[in-house]
């Protein structure tokens, strides 16, 4: 039994933003894998819910003529991972969301919910940060687009207002074409897990596959929000692919991350993971990009 006082299923995105505007207590629900937990814990007493669950307009993946990949935020993780566009163009994103919780959570939980929840541990966040995802937010007042790197404001907090609906997650062609990526989720067990550390590495190599042309490094739980490591990324550009470079990158990111100690894991332990997983993910990404290391 859940403490839900009002539940309205929106007919489409326009209806959802209208409902959010009309009821100042309304909260969005899609898959419910975060919201229902908060309700069960008594953190949303007398909840007023506006459901966007399964709205076709917000579900699925498409590619626009210019090559932009548009992900519907209400797409469940399992659907996203099985999508042919994702499997072809962004396989590492599909792999990352295949590590969310267990099968039930992946069938119900959505990629948009994963982002708007604001958690630094979100399994989709490192990949989408590395991809420079553009987040389209719609309210009764109109629409704005926010880059994911400007989306998070703190633990569990984002720039999204309560009455805004995430309607699209857009990946521009220059943010994925020619890149290969690798993601790692480090948890204390192999499934049903929240990340102790998440890591996404994207690399674009020179035509001869010997030199780094571009590098993207993104982390979850390495700071209060998902983060990129722009200095380490820039420092690697133009350098020959080697194990020494992997070590150099792994050390460089330590200056840009800021994990905290908690009862779940110490800062020292997370730093060890960041260094080692960066090294391993970079190597794997290079191999996926056709390089040798």
């Amino acid at each position: 039994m859940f403490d839900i006082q009002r539940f309205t299923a929106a007919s489409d995105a326009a209806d959802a933003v209208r409902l959010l505007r009309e009821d100042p207590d309304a909260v969005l629900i899609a898959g419910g894998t975060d919201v229902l937990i908060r309700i069960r814990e008594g953190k949303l007493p007398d909840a007023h819910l506006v459901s966007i669950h399964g709205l076709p307009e917000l579900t699925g993946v498409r590619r626009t003529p210019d090559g932009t990949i548009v992900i519907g935020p209400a797409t469940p993780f399992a659907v996203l991972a099985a999508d042919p566009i994702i499997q072809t163009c962004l396989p590492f994103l599909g792999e990352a969301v295949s590590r969310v919780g267990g099968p039930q959570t992946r069938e119900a939980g959505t990629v948009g919910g994963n982002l708007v929840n604001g958690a630094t541990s979100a399994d989709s966040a490192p990949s989408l940060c590395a991809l420079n995802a553009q987040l389209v937010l719609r309210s009764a007042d109109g629409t704005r687009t926010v880059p994911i790197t400007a989306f998070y404001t703190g633990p569990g907090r984002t720039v999204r207002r309560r009455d805004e609906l995430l309607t699209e997650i857009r990946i521009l062609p220059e943010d994925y074409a020619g890149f290969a990526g690798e993601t790692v989720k480090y948890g204390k067990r192999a499934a049903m897990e929240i990340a102790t550390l998440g890591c996404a590495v994207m690399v674009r190599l020179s035509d001869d596959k010997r030199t780094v042309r571009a590098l993207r490094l993104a982390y979850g739980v390495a700071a209060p929000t998902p983060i990129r490591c722009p200095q380490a990324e820039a420092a690697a550009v133009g350098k020959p692919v080697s194990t020494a470079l992997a070590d150099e990158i792994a050390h460089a990111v330590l200056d840009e991350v800021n994990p905290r100690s908690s009862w779940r894991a110490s800062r020292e332990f997370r730093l060890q993971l960041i260094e080692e997983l960066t090294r391993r993910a970079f190597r794997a990404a290079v191999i996926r990009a056709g390089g040798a290391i």
Partner: protein
Amino acid sequence: MAVGQSVPRVDAYAKVTGQAQYVGDLEPKTAYFAKIVRSTIANGRVTSIETGEARALPGVIAVFTCFDVPDIQFPTAGHPWSTVPSHQDICDRRLLNARVRVWGDEIAVVVARDRLTAERAAGLVRAEYETYPALSTPAEAMAEGAPCLHDEKPGNVIAHTSFHLGDGSFADAAAQPGAVTVEADYAVPAVQHCHLELVHACAWMEHEKITVVSSTQIPHIVRRVVGQALGIPWSRVRVIKPYIGGGFGNKQDVLVEPLTAWLTTKLGGHPVKIELTREEVLGCTRTRHAFDWHVSAAALPDGTLLARTYRAYSNQGGYASHAHAIAANAANVFKQCYRDRVSLDSESYTVYTNRPTAGAMRGYGIPQGCFVTEALTDDIAYAIGMDPLQFRLKNCVQAGYVDPHNGITMHTYALDQVIEAGRRAIGWDEKRAAYAGQTGPVRRGVGMALFTYKTGVYPISLETAACRMTLHEDGRVSVQMGATEIGQGADTVFSQMAAEALGVTLDRIDLCSTQDTDVSPFDTGAYASRQTYVSGMACKKTGESLKRKILDYAARMLNRPADGLDLRENRIVDETGAALLPLEDAAMEACYSLTDSTHLSAEESYHCTDNTFATGACFAEIEVDLPLGRIKVLRLINVHDSGRLINPALAKAQVQGGMSMGLGYALSEELLFDENCRPLNANLLDYKLPTAPDTPRLETIFIETDDPTAPYGNKALGEPPAIPVAPAIRNALLNATGVAVHSLPLTPQKLIEHFRAAGLLGGASHV
């Protein structure tokens, strides 16, 4: 032959199809929901409690506080009662307690028409406290000036016991030429049972009779404790135990039944239920005891174990529950596994703290004791440079062992065969050779641990059981056991034993799974791996008794002497085995004969005054990823001598379940608390049970002995599989890396710290 066959579980169909009835299926739909209001401190006293707001909430029926309950202290441990006062369990809690001893202590209860209302009202109850410092560890609780948790136990020590064995001393042993000694602190954390079905009870009254339906392992003990807690004659209480979704010892404690029963008496007999949440079960019921040890060992370079010392501190938490019985058991396994040629000094403390109350959990102190015993064994073998398997063969307990204190005897022995079977199965000698001198970031190792485990609780406590059988007109036999099915397969093996003893086929047996203390024969319940051994004998005796009555009746029908008749495969046969009469014909005649009608039934009880040891060992092969601090278990093999197997398929399943529990104990499970003893991870996301992908194939090997003291040669099997896994994995880590970790669980963060300290990671520390 029904015994020894891998027949399907008798309850499989009902459980798989959802027909099996649990507490939630049986409670009246009109039942009120009672929500316990829990303290938000771990140590202190409720000075006042405000309930007006809660009472005013629509749907609330009543609110009761710690100031409303009877002034009666009662025990909760699922032990047989003792008529000797000095052996009785400690009575140290009331239905609700003003003196708060654990975080989440039960200080009030809200009864409402539904769960949601009860939960909301519980959040409106406001308590004021006088707060004392929270005591996390035995060391803190034993310190000078520590607040006393129970007036009856000043100094917070519940019990302190010690013994010395041998003619010499540890100092004598250490002084022997060439003797090598090791000495260290070891520790294991509190973990939780995580049974699938939550703690759940429902009670109502019909006139004076209080009926309690409960998810329990011990219905007859629950009846006694409810009677004690309410101060009423025990027979006014009727406890019904339907199918339950696991217990693992947490339900060998009386948890919510007394409060549920008391509430119905306060509400005119209206049905009231308490169903705890997973968070309450994890943080506020019972745990496995955490232990801290200081131990030492002395051995000669040839591997002769000379002497050991053992000092244990068992963290009891806020209430006594099973108390010192756990620490005593842990000390026993340290004693019973090995032969100290010179001396063994052992002492154990059980100490109240403000951690959650610890109680019974699968293995009952032996998984803890086995960890320290087997970690120390590997550490001393490592110190003298000897293969730890060879060291064990040279020093382990031998055939005919008799415990010097309680007289428990190894009536049958196969520990040497157990070790040999595991050695061959895992390829011990080859792998120890192959894994010597590894250097890379990923290393492999093999390790082992052995154990001994007694079967039941005699002579420490009473062992008694009863069974009833009735022959029906169609030749089927209904069987009622006082012993309980808790998921382990008891109903199936008792059905097999009944069929065997009677001489009927298994399909003729209808075993009643439910215990109803007004109706069922007496039994103390499912714990101590006792039921197949103790209750099984009651089942066998009853079957034999009913068979005699059937044959006597058949003899009258056939007009020939009963001597020489037998019942085999549902037929009365003569000495040659020739069929004389189908059982159903005798049964029909016995019921409806106009000249000789008698109802054929039998009831027997069995007072067990013996015991015997099961033994076993776990063999683990692991791969360690040093830079990530991660252990991957490649192979896990449990080898058991549990005597003759009643049902090999069920035995295998039981061992696999226990190995899974041991795997979690080894690698990931641990209840965590803040400095105020508030649980941090009392949920199934943050409390890390292993998942299927974390679990290797669980391999099982049985060495079957035929124990003469058992009904069918069988010995303890329920608990033993969980015991040796964690130290085996810990010892495999020592083999792989040379790093001796002295505590559980072997979490990546802990391993990284150890690997860094051992210089295995290179580079600078991340500070």
